[in-house]
């Protein structure tokens, strides 16, 4: 059995089978959750490329799978990443019990994660761009559910994500030429420009970011949150693979300066725009822009410190973005619009979710005591050593996002309470927070973990094994 079969083909096959299930119950969600949990557990416990004796049976998970003449490799070094990705998938599936993103969510999420894993496994890794585009295409029926009119955000997103494919594939071809003649400045510039364009499109960096906030107004926040989190995470690891693979990229300080500048610009603009938003979906989209900018900054810091900061920040952002998307999705089901002016009564009725959403925004802004603070501090420290201007941009961006969070807090606390219908008439999923045990468990666990990591960031130390996937960059 190969790792690609287990973590790529199996989820895609099961996901496709779940799409055929037509009854309106939770069976697909339970099955997808079960599979996702098992795959997480296997990734965590079973070493790859080692023969294991299970009683009389010997099992080996081979690292490579060959398909159409190309290899898909998920080796022992990537096992921690596999564990994390499938753990994140398990969390998003768990959240679906609260948020109800649609009947297709369990099946399509398994297929999408399978495709994202294929993007990380394929050799040569440049082909990953095609898997990322395929994952986006697969996700479209959830972004635009049957019976709804697709908007301009969907149209723009489709175009921008597909634009990234030619850019990245041609970059790969050009980079091969650059390796042969690294002194050819024209070739290096062309390759660099195409690469920046390709990743700009797929990571929704300024000025190609507009589709995310537009789409956030048109679709369910949980569905968009899942897509942007996995798409951007896998694309950033793909970017790290680029830098790891090509010596001229790795040894060129201009590449890291460009990443720092792009990341800082993303943090600044995302934060400033977030401070102006009155629509919670758009606020989440700009918070995501700040998050991606922060990760780019971490890569741009370079060396072992930058890589460690990147993974520390990424893991905590995953936790925070998941909760933010879940809270907004529950509110989205309760009210016709996520405009702050219309949300007051819903926020009063769901104080735990409102508090969680506010805490998530503050955590993404880098507020002390909350999980991502230590990673933010490392980024600010590194930025300060390289450019005070970029540090100022970054701090202003964080301040902007903080303002967005405080605006939500104000909308919640200043809302007028409305009379509530008797609770016993409502199903559990529609009860107010205080009477809903699932929301209590979700909010409390989430908050404790966020504060726990904020106060004791050393808990994340074992996860730093992720950096070993990029030995050249780690040096």
């Amino acid at each position, binding site marked *: 059995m190969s790792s690609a079969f287990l973590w790529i083909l199996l989820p895609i096959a099961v996901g496709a089978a779940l799409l055929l299930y037509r009854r309106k119950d939770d069976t697909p969600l339970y099955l997808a959750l079960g599979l996702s949990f098992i795959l997480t557990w296997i990734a965590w416990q079973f070493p790859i490329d080692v023969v294991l004796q299970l009683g009389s049976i010997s099992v080996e998970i081979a690292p490579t799978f060959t398909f159409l003449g190309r290899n898909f490799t998920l080796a022992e070094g990537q096992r921690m990443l596999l564990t994390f990705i499938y753990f994140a998938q398990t969390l998003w599936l768990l959240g679906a019990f609260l948020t109800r993103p649609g009947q297709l969510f369990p099946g399509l999420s398994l297929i999408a994660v399978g495709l994202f894993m294929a993007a990380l496994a394929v050799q040569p890794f440049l082909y990953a761009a095609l898997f990322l585009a*395929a994952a986006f*295409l697969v996700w479209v029926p959830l972004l635009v559910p049957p*019976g*709804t009119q697709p908007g301009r955000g969907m149209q723009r997103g489709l175009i921008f994500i597909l634009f990234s494919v030619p850019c990245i*594939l*041609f970059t790969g071809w050009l980079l091969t030429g650059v390796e042969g003649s690294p002194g050819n400045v024209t070739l290096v510039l062309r390759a660099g420009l195409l690469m920046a364009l390709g990743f700009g499109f797929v990571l929704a960096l300024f000025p190609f970011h507009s589709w995310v906030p537009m789409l956030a107004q048109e679709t369910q926040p949980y569905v968009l949150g899942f897509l942007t989190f996995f798409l951007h995470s896998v694309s950033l690891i793909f970017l790290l693979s680029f830098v790891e693979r090509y010596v001229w990229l790795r040894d060129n300080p201009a590449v890291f300066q460009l990443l720092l500048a792009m990341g800082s610009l993303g943090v600044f603009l995302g934060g400033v725009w977030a401070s102006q938003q009155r629509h919670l979906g758009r606020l989440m989209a700009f918070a995501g822009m700040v998050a991606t900018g922060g990760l780019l900054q971490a890569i741009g810091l370079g060396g072992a410190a930058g890589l460690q900061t990147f993974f520390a920040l990424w893991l905590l952002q995953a936790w925070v973005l998941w909760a933010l998307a879940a809270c907004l999705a529950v509110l989205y089901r309760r009210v016709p619009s996520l405009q702050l002016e219309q949300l007051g009564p819903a926020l009063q009725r769901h104080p735990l979710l409102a508090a969680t959403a506010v805490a998530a925004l503050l955590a993404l802004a880098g507020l002390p005591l909350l999980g991502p603070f230590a990673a933010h501090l490392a980024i600010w420290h590194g930025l300060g050593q390289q450019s005070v201007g970029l540090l100022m941009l970054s701090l202003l961006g964080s301040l902007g996002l903080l303002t967005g969070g405080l605006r939500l807090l104000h909308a919640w606390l200043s809302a007028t309470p409305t009379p509530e219908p008797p609770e016993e008439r409502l199903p559990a999923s529609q009860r107010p927070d205080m009477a809903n045990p699932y929301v209590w468990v979700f909010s409390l666990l989430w908050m404790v973990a966020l504060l726990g990591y904020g106060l004791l960031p050393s808990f994340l130390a074992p996860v730093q094994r992720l950096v070993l996937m990029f030995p050249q960059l780690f040096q």
Partner: protein
Amino acid sequence: MSDFLGTLVVLLLLITALYILVNQDWRWAIAALGLQYVWAFLLLLMAWPAELAVVKLVTGWIAASVLGLTRLNLPQQAAASGNVPSGRVFRLLAAGLVILMVLGAAPRLADWSRAFGIYQAWGGLLLLGMGLLQLALRSGFFRTALGLLTLFSGFEILYAAVEGSTLVIGLLTAVNLGIALVSAYLLTAPTLEAEE
């Protein structure tokens, strides 16, 4: 490929791409897209064996059929909603600019890398430019799909010169079909029964 045939194929590509750009009738646009894939197939033959290149032709025809059948089954009102009229003259002028740029850029591209023949460079860049123009000037998911498929045809003509991996061909085929299927879904989504 002889000079005459190469030039003829590029000219035919230009005519079909221009027709897709300026034409208002979706039926003729689909027919032009189908023909465009034939000319693109002829250019692909310069880099790939026929059995590989024909995959692109069949894929393109399937994509065009999916779009055509979807449009055919749309209610008239919904079909008309994606059709924002804009000046044909303006689109032709914009296409003229693209053609001028391609005339300048294609020989330089062919000079710069020996991987590309001049006809591949002309055809590929022309379709890339026309696809971009279609995406920029026409609205609605039907026209977006035509633009994306045209753009990808141009890209594949160029990329075929530097990459012949079966996996990549398969994945690009899947992406082309995906564009057609997703566009068909987005065109029909408003008319589908809403999920509870």
